[in-house]
């Protein structure tokens, strides 16, 4: 039920809240000067306001900053980044905050937010991303090498089509050219007679040599590329590790700073409390002493009065 409150009381609250204008404050002063009851009420409210300002506040728990920092996701992407074709929400085992649920303790800390968010999440760390990227590169490289090997084999080796082969499963048979016999060697015959076969052999040799060169070149390229990838990955991992170390150091420094602040604050609170208690105790003692003195005085007066009455 809502109690009625007068405009004067409202004005008192506005002044005590620091929300009244100078004119309103002046008006209140005038009214309080003319009305002792209103002055008493104002003093009463003022005491309550002052006491509310003295209510001790809770200290934030130790480790809150560290736990938040540790679970901090990467900064949200700006509007221009949102058209990414493969959002990383396909990564399993991550929450919409980009950290495992256990970070927040029980599942109740991870209830759905009351405001819908359109921001896509980043669920994997930069280190994980760089590793995945490195794996992709390795697979792509291997694929390219395999395809190149097939092409080279087709170009370099001219396999004859086997005759009378039925079906696809047939005993492997190595192609062998018929060896040259003594009848093929004719002494004194001009070189031009064997020109055709010699040219064929030389062409085959040239193709084989070229193929070997190409393969060696590709192997060298692949090795260099792999080495470069590894170096880049190592560099990225080192940088990430260094950054993580730095962050951990900063978190630790902050925690230490907070602990120090907390201790200082607690000490100050304790000191203030002790001082206040001591002052109150002194006031109480003084009051008691005064009461004792007054009682003694009264007792003395009564005795004197009794003595006077007893005298003839």
């Amino acid at each position, binding site marked *: 039920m809502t109690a009625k409150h007068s405009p004067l009381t409202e004005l008192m609250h506005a002044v005590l809240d620091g929300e009244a204008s100078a004119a309103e404050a002046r008006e209140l002063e005038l009214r309080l000067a003319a009305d002792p009851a209103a002055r008493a009420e104002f003093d009463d409210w003022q005491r309550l306001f002052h006491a509310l300002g003295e209510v001790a506040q809770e200290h934030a728990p130790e480790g809150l900053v560290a736990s*938040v920092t540790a679970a901090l996701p990467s900064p949200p992407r700006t509007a221009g980044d949102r058209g990414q074709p493969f959002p990383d929400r396909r990564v399993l085992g991550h929450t919409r905050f*980009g950290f495992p649920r256990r970070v927040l303790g029980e599942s109740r800390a991870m209830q759905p937010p009351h405001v819908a968010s359109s921001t896509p999440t980043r669920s994997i760390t930069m280190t994980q991303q760089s590793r995945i990227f490195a794996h992709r590169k390795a697979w792509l490289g291997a694929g390219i090498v395999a395809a190149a090997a097939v092409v080279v084999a087709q170009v370099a080796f001219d396999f004859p089509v086997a005759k009378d082969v039925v079906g696809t499963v047939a005993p492997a048979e190595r192609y062998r050219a018929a060896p040259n016999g003594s009848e093929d060697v004719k002494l004194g015959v001009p070189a031009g007679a064997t020109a055709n076969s010699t040219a064929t052999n030389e062409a085959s040799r040239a193709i084989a040599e070229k193929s070997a060169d190409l393969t060696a070149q590709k192997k060298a390229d692949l090795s260099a590329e792999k080495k470069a990838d590894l170096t880049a990955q190592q560099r990225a991992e080192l940088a990430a590790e260094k950054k993580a170390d730095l962050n951990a150091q900063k978190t630790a420094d902050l925690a230490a700073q907070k602990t120090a602040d907390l201790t200082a604050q607690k000490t100050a609170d304790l000191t203030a409390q002790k001082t206040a208690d001591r002052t109150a105790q002194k006031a109480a003692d003084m009051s008691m002493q005064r009461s004792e003195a007054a009682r003694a005085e009264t007792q003395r007066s009564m005795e004197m009065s009794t003595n006077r009455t007893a005298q003839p």
Partner: protein
Amino acid sequence: MRVPTFAAVACTSDEDDDRVLVERYLSGDRDAFTALVVRYQRPIYNAAFWVLRRHEDAHDISQTVFLKVAERADEYDPKYKFFSWIYRIAVNESLNLLRRHRHEDELEDDVEIAGDESAGPERQASAAQLARQLRKAMMTMATSDRLVLTLRHFSECSYEEMAQILEIDEKTVKSRLFEARRRLRGLLKDWK
């Protein structure tokens, strides 16, 4: 002019500085966000604690609030004050948790908080003693009362700021504050 009474008071913090820190975080500086957490951890924790009245819940909510803010930092509209935004998230999250747990008790009209009758009158009147009684009395009050008293007296928010955080008009803020104070004074047996 309002004077902050305890460290890291949210409603009196440097608003421009907050905006700069948010911008720095959005451009990839995680330390900027850590600075925001350090600045607001106490007021946010206190806001959650005074709504939930349980340290464990206040801790969980504080963590959730900061992570939610980090996740949605790009949704922050700089034309509003940062603390109003983060406070609104904290208040809503706390109230949501309260609804889910349903451990909020209704306030009894005749609840009175006993003063320390064994002490002398001066001792009872001491500010520290009174503050302790007030704290105890506030713990028995309804959530809406605790909320407005916390925002005004502990976080030192103005009527306008409270209206932004609670998403109500200023007139309602004044009325709720007045009623909460009246009920609080009624709970203090030895007030007079």
